[in-house]
């Protein structure tokens, strides 16, 4: 039955091919050239069964190889790669997030450190200023004390010097009197006179 239909079809196809050939001039020419050999070899229906048979055999073989071996193998590899790529992208994205977090943390730490340093500097400056002030005050106090003591000592020495000056003057006056007049004057009298002179002279 197959053979029957094959030959029936082959007649029609012969017609088809002849018309196809007629449609394009270049084939018409080749057809004419090949005409000597009994027409186109493609239209020789006796070769049709073998061609169809081997077409079926080879195509079924190919189909089986494709669907059982080749296609699963290729799609496996492609899927695996797709998964791997997605994984890699996932990892990259995750690491990027982590890196961003670390960066934010780092920036925060830097900012903290900076403000802390600022505070420290200010505190140190304040402390220095404070200690400066106390030291100054102390120094001023000390200076004042020293000055006072020195003044006191000067005053003391001055009175002392004045005292000694009085006695020296009295002695000198008494001696001078003796030398000039030969009169011996009592110490008390001389002292009184010197004092009066000094006060008057002063």
């Amino acid at each position, binding site marked *: 039955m197959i053979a029957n239909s094959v030959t029936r079809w082959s007649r029609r196809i012969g017609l088809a091919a002849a018309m196809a050939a007629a449609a394009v001039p*270049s084939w018409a020419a080749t057809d004419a050239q090949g005409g000597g050999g009994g027409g186109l070899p493609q239209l020789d229906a006796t070769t049709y069964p073998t061609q169809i048979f081997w077409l079926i*055999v080879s195509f079924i073989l190919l189909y089986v190889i494709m669907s059982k071996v*080749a296609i699963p193998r290729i799609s496996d590899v492609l899927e695996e790669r797709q998964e791997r790529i997605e994984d890699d992208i996932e990892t990259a994205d995750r690491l990027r997030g982590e890196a961003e977090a670390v960066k934010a943390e780092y920036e925060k730490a830097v900012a903290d450190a900076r403000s802390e340093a600022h505070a420290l500097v200010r505190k140190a400056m304040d402390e220095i200023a404070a200690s400066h002030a106390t030291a100054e005050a102390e120094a001023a106090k000390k200076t004042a004390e020293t000055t006072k003591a020195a003044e006191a000592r000067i005053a003391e020495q001055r009175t002392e010097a004045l005292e000694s000056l009085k006695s020296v003057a009295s002695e000198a006056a008494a001696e001078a009197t003796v030398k000039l007049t030969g009169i011996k004057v009592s110490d008390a009298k001389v002292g009184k006179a010197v004092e009066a002179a000094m006060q008057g002279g002063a």
Partner: protein
Amino acid sequence: MASPVEQFQIKTIGPELHVAGMDISFTNSALFMILATFVVGVFLTQSMSGRHLVPTRIQSLAELSYEFIANMVRENVGPEGRPYFPFIFSLFMFILVGNLLGMIPYSYTFTSQIIVTFAMAITIFVAITIVALIKHGFHFFTFFFPSGAPVYMAPLLIPIEILSYLSRPVSLSVRLFANMMAGHTMMKVFGGFVVALGVFGVAPLLVLVALTGFEILVAVLQAYVFTILTCIYLYDAIHLH
């Protein structure tokens, strides 16, 4: 000079085989069909045997052809096309490798045989029609009356639509067959000129070189066209308008 169509002659290889009154001897055409199967099978299984995550050059070629057809089916048939993918992929590789093997000197181009292309086209056509009938039942026949056309046009339009539908396998097979045959015939003719003209054969030789490049393009293109039309017909069968 040998006839330019002599290259299409079927020659028996080995003993003649007859089964149930039919001649099924092994021939040059059959040899190249088996060879195409072998080449495709070896190429697609061996290139992938490494299963490299980063593909080698040959592996990426195999993957590229796979994804090319996968995208074609996805875009032209839709998700329903998935079960037909192995068939369409095999079809594409078979025709592509058959066409390309034919470009090798002294080889045989089985796709230049109308019976081969027609057998493939009619099988696809019948299978797709069956798919459509299973999916849509008798609703399938509304396919032949253009929606929106006036009813009184039906007696004219329905036969035209049916004929237009029936001409699908013919145009599908004739397109592939005629392209391959015309190309190979032209190459043979120009090859003949090169030999016949001797020193002056340089001019046809240049034409022949250009033609060879063009034929390789046609070989790929026709495999693609055959496959994408199969996809489009399948889409029609699954979705109907």
